């Protein structure tokens, strides 16, 4: 007889997530992930002034707001036929890079660490034990100090972001046509100095820390695999990034590489709390309404699919597609990839600083067309983020957002294909069923951001042994 276990709240992520697993003989046989928050930003955006989308969509997410400003600016530039000049694009890449650093530092130290390290003895960052802390005391104490030290560096990353973007979270400096900052030598040297200190911490401390965790928890190289299908919309891939060009748009499915085609992206709502006249919805068409009492549905997160396949997005997907990391696909590989990517971003920012020209930004007064369509696709901290924008009568007619977390935490689709995190959980060996620490560790390796995925779940339950931990 199996046992159903529910974890809610799955803390140390951004937003609210419930994970349900069904375990038989220590093996997870089934898994469901449900986002627990619905705000409906797509609906709110209808009728608003198009330029406002850049600041408005940032309010979707407190930890990755810059990602939304970038995708929104790209969609607007596509619609308005505006091409920012290279210098402004380089500055925008730096702003985006700062968010990567902030996010990866905080995800690794504040969100991931407590799964493996007892941590600083400060409420509520610390708990006595879940029975599977393996670091020797002296190592644990060392890493706990790094937890505290890291806060200075993630704060510095946001400070860099604010130097260029006004404030963080929710910056003002990313805008249609590029950026609003007027670069001068004082800003330049501030950035150079801060990035050097962040890079020092990442190279000297963070890389070693993830190595230590990987060594003591090496069994996590053997779980949490998922599908091994990856997608990237491309990021830091303009020629000016040479020799640190990161990753172009690309797809890896069943070990075969394909060129990326945005028309193959759909969202499946069969098991999601939505109603519409079709099950597979292209981001360019179809309106959906919430329907919490829809039969069989168990999540309000839609299921994005690429040519009908669920795809993993995020640092591991990017490093894999860029050919820089091919050790394996697992919980630990995903965590290592995030740290390696943080190091890479430091190099990208430093390289951009050597190329940037000092001088004013290149803002214009932008005319809003009567009718237009634009698409903004970008690799962001958690993975592939897409904004689709329709303008009519100079207002937003329709706005579709498909977030990285929707790709990773999607429910099952109408073909019976599970979402990526669900797939990664199924088959996992759970050592102590009373204390299933594996579940949280696997889920957090994806860095889910449910604020972005913005959805809800059923309040109905069928009868079965349920244990809530």
């Amino acid at each position, binding site marked *: 007889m199996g046992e159903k276990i529910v974890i809610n709240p799955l803390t140390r992520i951004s937003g609210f997530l419930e994970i349900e697993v069904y375990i038989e003989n220590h093996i997870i046989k089934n898994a469901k992930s449900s986002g627990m928050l619905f705000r409906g930003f797509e609906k709110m955006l209808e009728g608003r002034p198009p330029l406002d989308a850049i600041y408005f969509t940032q*309010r979707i997410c407190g930890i990755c707001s810059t990602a939304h400003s970038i995708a929104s600016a790209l969609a607007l530039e596509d619609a308005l036929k505006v091409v920012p000049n290279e210098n402004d694009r380089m500055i925008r890449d730096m702003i985006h890079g700062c968010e990567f650093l902030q996010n990866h530092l905080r995800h690794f130290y504040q969100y991931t660490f407590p799964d493996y390290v007892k941590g600083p003895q400060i409420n509520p960052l610390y*708990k006595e034990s879940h029975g599977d802390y393996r670091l020797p005391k002296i190592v644990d104490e060392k890493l706990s100090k790094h937890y505290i030290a890291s806060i200075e560096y993630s704060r510095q990353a946001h400070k860099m972001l604010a130097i260029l973007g006004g404030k963080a979270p929710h910056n003002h400096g990313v805008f249609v046509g590029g950026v609003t900052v007027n670069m001068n030598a004082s800003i330049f040297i501030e950035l150079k100095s801060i990035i050097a200190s962040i890079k020092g911490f990442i190279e000297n401390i963070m890389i070693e820390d993830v190595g230590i965790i990987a060594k003591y928890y090496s069994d996590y190289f053997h779980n949490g695999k998922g599908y091994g299908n990856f997608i990237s919309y491309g990021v830091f891939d303009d020629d000016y990034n040479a020799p640190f060009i990161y990753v172009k748009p690309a797809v890896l499915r069943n070990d075969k590489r394909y060129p990326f085609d945005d028309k193959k992206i759909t969202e499946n709502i069969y098991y999601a709390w939505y109603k519409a006249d079709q099950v597979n919805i292209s981001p360019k068409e179809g309106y959906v309404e*919430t329907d919490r009492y829809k039969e069989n549905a168990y999540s309000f997160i839609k299921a994005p699919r690429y040519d009908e396949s669920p795809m993993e997005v995020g640092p591991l997907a990017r490093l894999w597609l860029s050919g820089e990391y091919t050790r394996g696909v697992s919980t630990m590989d995903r965590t290592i990839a995030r740290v390696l990517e943080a190091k890479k971003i430091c190099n990208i920012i430093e390289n951009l600083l050597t190329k940037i020209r000092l001088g004013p930004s290149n803002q214009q007064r932008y005319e809003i067309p009567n009718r237009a369509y634009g698409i903004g696709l970008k690799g962001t901290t958690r993975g592939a983020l897409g904004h689709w924008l329709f303008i009519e009568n100079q207002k937003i007619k329709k706005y579709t957002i498909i977030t990285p977390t929707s790709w990773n935490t999607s429910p099952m689709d109408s073909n019976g294909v599970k979402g990526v995190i669900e797939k990664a959980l199924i088959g996992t060996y759970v050592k102590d069923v009373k204390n299933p620490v594996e579940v949280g560790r696997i889920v957090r390796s994806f860095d889910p951001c449910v604020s972005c995925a913005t959805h809800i779940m059923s309040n109905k339950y069928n009868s079965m042994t349920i244990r809530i*931990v």
Partner: protein
Amino acid sequence: MNRKCPIFENKRRIPRQIIDFTIANINPNHKINLIWLEACGCSGNIISLLNGENPDVIFLLKQMVNMTYNNSLMAQEGEAAFEKFLETLDTEFILVVEGAVSTKDNGLYNVIARYKEKLITGMEAVAMAGKKAKYVLAVGSCAAYGGPSAARPNPSLSKSVYDFLDREVIRVPGCPAHPRWVMGTLADIISFGKPILDEENRPVVFYGITIHDRCPRRAYFDKGIFAQKLGDKECMFKLGCRGPITKTDCPIRRWNNSINWPIGDNTPCIGCARNGFPDLMEPFVRY
């Protein structure tokens, strides 16, 4: 050492007493408990709090309050996490809420936990803790005024914590709230009791004067010299700047360790800390 000396025993004991006394008084349990509840929002205020410097978040947690519950930071997960929330309700505590209260379908658009098989909504948690808390702080514009979560057509039927709770609620708005606005308000509460509040229940020290009154670009306004586009150095009034109707200390406080702020980045204030943001502040940018 001469162990026969009559004052030896006292010498040995007195420091011990002082140490015990000191430890008892710096015992973390003597700090007031604090629940930082993330409700229907983006969790951007706890991220902003992590940007705080002097005090930083570690000082806050070590020296100022005993934070017992926060979804983003706490080590526990699942039911064990929510038990920390419940345990705190029977103590003297400060409730900080970020995010609005979603009331659609009896709160089910924002579920924060499952406890003994029952879903706990943000609405229920705010009501439960709001009833018992010594102080309630609505941090961020969603909690304080509804903010982006309640933006039209308000699909989640979100309300501000201020409107939802029938009790005194201190508003600390901003999208997000500046870490110093939060730390400063907490410092006031811990050290001196309730801060001086204005007619909208905001601490006067942070929200007393309009941005426009202290704007470094005010001289341009007074001379009628206006920016034509973002990136310009002059007054942003004609681009839609909401500084004249937004009361915060942004011009002198600035953001992210006082390094910059939106107007310093050559963009208009969008009134993010103001009642009516975002709907009444639109368009954010106009030419």
